[in-house]
């Protein structure tokens, strides 16, 4: 099979994984090296597909042969899609070529499971090893680890990769049992715990290293431990393939963040796949629901919201018509209006339309003068959204509950069970 065809098949097989970020690693470049590549903290989206998603990494599978039969997955053993397998050197050359064109920040490599977890993981690690050691590639590498691969392979993976991930796929144990009976949720969690411990240990060690004072003129002897997945670990949950509601999805995420210090949980609206299994009546992917989950996730990570307070609706689903912060504010009208000149930071962060940066600026301005309503315009925040919820000099919202959208019709959430 020629390379074009393989690439087509193995990119097709990888496009359902939502992770794409290439940020948060240690800064480095290729000056003085033998190869190319750099990471400078923030990742770069080099292109966008017509689905609005960014392309920052060459995201492919090493092979889409898989011995598992997870029903939601296009690569499951019982699916009739065409199969292909890259040779290690082919992925390496593709990565280098796309990188030289400046089309990508690096590689995101995943694989169907063939023969055994260790056999599969070994191939995946070999690609990363060849890139790093044979070609001195300094760009970003994200590897999907296989749960239950041996400790030694995981250790090597973390040495070459910037980020490691393991997908939990289903937000609940029951969901996983129903759709991926061969996968072991407990094994997935054990692997995440193992990654977290290694990441923690490496950081801890790096902090403890005291730079050794070298003799004048001698090169400084830095005894830093080799890095282990400096950009941390992440995971993905498929949304809408089973009946789990948003409240439980967010609870699962909160647990994962708390237990394993994940950098990100990605939510992937389940979308139709070719040759789908009978158990999954297909529909258009619940994209708006996915979007709301990302917003809710953001509230947990950056706005001090607890996962239990985000979904107010009795059916356990996020409102689709308004964003979760606005929904929270509408459901807690008694906490508003908030006085821009006096409210504490935590409460300002709960005002719909005020972002973290805007809140910082307000707090800063407040120290030297009074805040007026027309300051909001210059803060570039959506004043129409903010004003009903705040009091400022020369502004007080109309008495009574804030009126934004008097119970708009709710779009039906797609549910497949």
């Amino acid at each position, binding site marked *: 099979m020629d*390379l074009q065809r393989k690439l087509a098949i193995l990119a097709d097989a990888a496009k359902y994984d939502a992770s794409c970020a290439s940020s948060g690693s240690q800064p480095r470049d290729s000056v003085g090296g033998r190869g190319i590549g750099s990471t400078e903290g923030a990742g770069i989206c080099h292109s966008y597909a017509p689905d609005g998603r960014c392309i920052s990494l060459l995201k492919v599978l090493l092979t889409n042969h898989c011995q598992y039969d997870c029903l939601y997955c296009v690569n499951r053993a019982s699916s009739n899609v065409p199969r292909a397998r890259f040779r290690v050197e082919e992925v390496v050359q593709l990565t280098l070529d796309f990188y030289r064109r400046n089309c990508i920040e690096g590689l995101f490599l995943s694989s169907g499971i063939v023969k055994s977890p260790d056999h599969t993981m070994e191939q995946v690690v070999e690609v990363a090893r060849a890139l790093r050691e044979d070609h001195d590639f300094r760009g970003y590498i994200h590897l999907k680890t296989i749960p239950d691969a041996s400790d030694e392979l995981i250790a090597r993976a973390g040495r070459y990769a910037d980020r490691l991930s393991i997908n939990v796929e289903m937000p609940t144990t029951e969901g996983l049992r129903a759709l991926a009976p061969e996968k072991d949720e407990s094994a997935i969690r054990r692997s995440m715990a193992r990654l977290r411990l290694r990441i923690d240990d490496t950081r801890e060690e790096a902090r403890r290293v005291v730079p050794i004072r070298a003799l004048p003129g001698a090169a400084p002897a830095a005894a830093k431990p080799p890095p282990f997945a400096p950009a941390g670990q992440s995971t993905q949950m498929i949304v809408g393939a089973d009946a789990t509601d948003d409240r439980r999805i967010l609870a699962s995420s909160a647990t994962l963040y708390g237990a394993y210090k994940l950098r990100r949980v990605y939510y992937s609206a389940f979308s139709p796949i070719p040759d789908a299994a009978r158990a999954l009546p297909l529909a258009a992917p619940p994209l708006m629901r996915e979007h709301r989950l990302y917003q809710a996730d953001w509230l947990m990570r950056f706005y001090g919201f607890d996962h239990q307070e985000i979904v107010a609706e009795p059916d356990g689903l996020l409102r689709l018509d308004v964003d979760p912060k606005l929904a929270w504010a509408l459901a807690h009208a008694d906490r508003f209006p908030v006085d821009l000149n006096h409210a504490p930071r935590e409460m300002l962060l709960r005002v719909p339309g005020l972002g973290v940066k805007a809140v910082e600026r307000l707090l800063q301005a407040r120290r030297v*003068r009074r805040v007026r309503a027309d300051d909001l315009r210059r803060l570039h925040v959506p004043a129409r959204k903010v004003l009903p919820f705040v009091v400022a000099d020369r502004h007080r919202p109309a008495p009574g509950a804030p009126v934004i959208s008097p119970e708009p019709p709710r779009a039906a959430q797609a549910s497949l069970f």
Partner: protein
Amino acid sequence: MQVQVRLDDATDLGAFRRHARQLLAAGVPPERVEWSAAQAAGEAADLFGEAGAATLPAATAAAAPLAVPPWFVELCGDVILHREPQRHALLYRLLWRLAHEPALRHDPLDADLMQARQMAKAVHRDIHKMRAFVRFTRVVGNDGVERHVAWFEPDHHIVEANAPFFARRFAQMRWAILTPERCVEWNGQALAFREGADRREKPPPDGGEQLWLTYYEHIFNPARLKLAAMRREMPRRYWHNLPEAALIQPLADAAEARSQSMIEAPPTAARRIRAPIPLHLRPPEGAAPADLGELRAAAHACRACPIGALATQAVCGEGLIAPQHMLVGEQPGDQEDLVGRPFVGPAGQLLDRTMAQLGWARETVYLANAVKHFKYELRGKRRIHKTAGQREAEACAHWLESEISLVRPQGLVALGATAARALLGRPVAVQAERGAWLHERGDGRPVFVTLHPSALLRLPDAERAEALGRWRAELALARDTLPAAIAA
């Protein structure tokens, strides 16, 4: 009287600062300054225009240089790269106001400052988009040397500021970026700049480009078409220089039909083509585990109480088989849950230290917990230990009993109330019953009750030393007074 200042290079921050400092020292207010820049490189440029030179007031003697906050210098560095011709005037006005309005530096909502920040933001975005959307094409020159050449059209004067980024990234590659205003070339050693190029110098696509187009075509999921979101991040004006952009329309046109056909296609029946991989040995449902490996695997999957679903793994015991003593604690904590071994957290370390003081090697006992999964409450991003309830402990009891019969210890040491209750099958008042062997178990194994090490960690410092002494003495007693031979 107007003062005219002509800049040799409109983006030279150093020159601008020199002029601005001088004007400020001379007390020239911003509304009296007209800034202009030389149009093309090489055009004669005077420090001050004739009109200005004649009228520039002399600097007031010994004017102290103005101290500005570091962020202002940084802001100037960004804004000066903006294509807006009025940017120098804006920056000088800000400098003037910083000198005369002390409150300005603390007011992030000031209109001039906000405008400058917006301009800096636009420059940053342009720098970022250039890093994203420059596309190199491989070109082999007549000399046989391989180079990577790109054509790009930035919005602002960012080529020089952005070039070092590409040099750091592509250090071992010879490359050039051509733009209408300024070109930059890297020969592997140094950056060289020259004036702008013509669009016709853009290199034609090389042979490998088709692979990139294939990738772009296949990483797109037709069921998720979202053109507006795409255009927001990759505005149309960049498209004519991005090879993949030619695919956008055809992909979008076909998307609806493609995803509809996936939805309508008759689903296939699940059909096994390979045997599943047995990853985890697990005893048949309901059967008692035959060895500790099976016990562990089965307990991992246990969901007899709600704790199991939230923890990482069941933490079974470890240590010597058929030991004299089996020490039983309450339940794994945060560390134990992650590591998968009992007594590795702070409480376990205290137990280790105390046993070491007694010359009692950890390897000569078996250490286990009454409840196998970690119970906690999420507080923010932290997991806070919670004591397992009675119902949970009861649901879990059979795992401990299986473990006891597989490990076959002579005596059992209960650390804390939860362990004591699990081993004796009744509520135990630890303070009242600690320090002696109790003979109540059906299997004849005596149980010695004492504190859990975490209880000692919770004590105030003043009380801890004494309590520790008593605890250590009790452990020694348990070790030394174990009644001989029970029916195993």
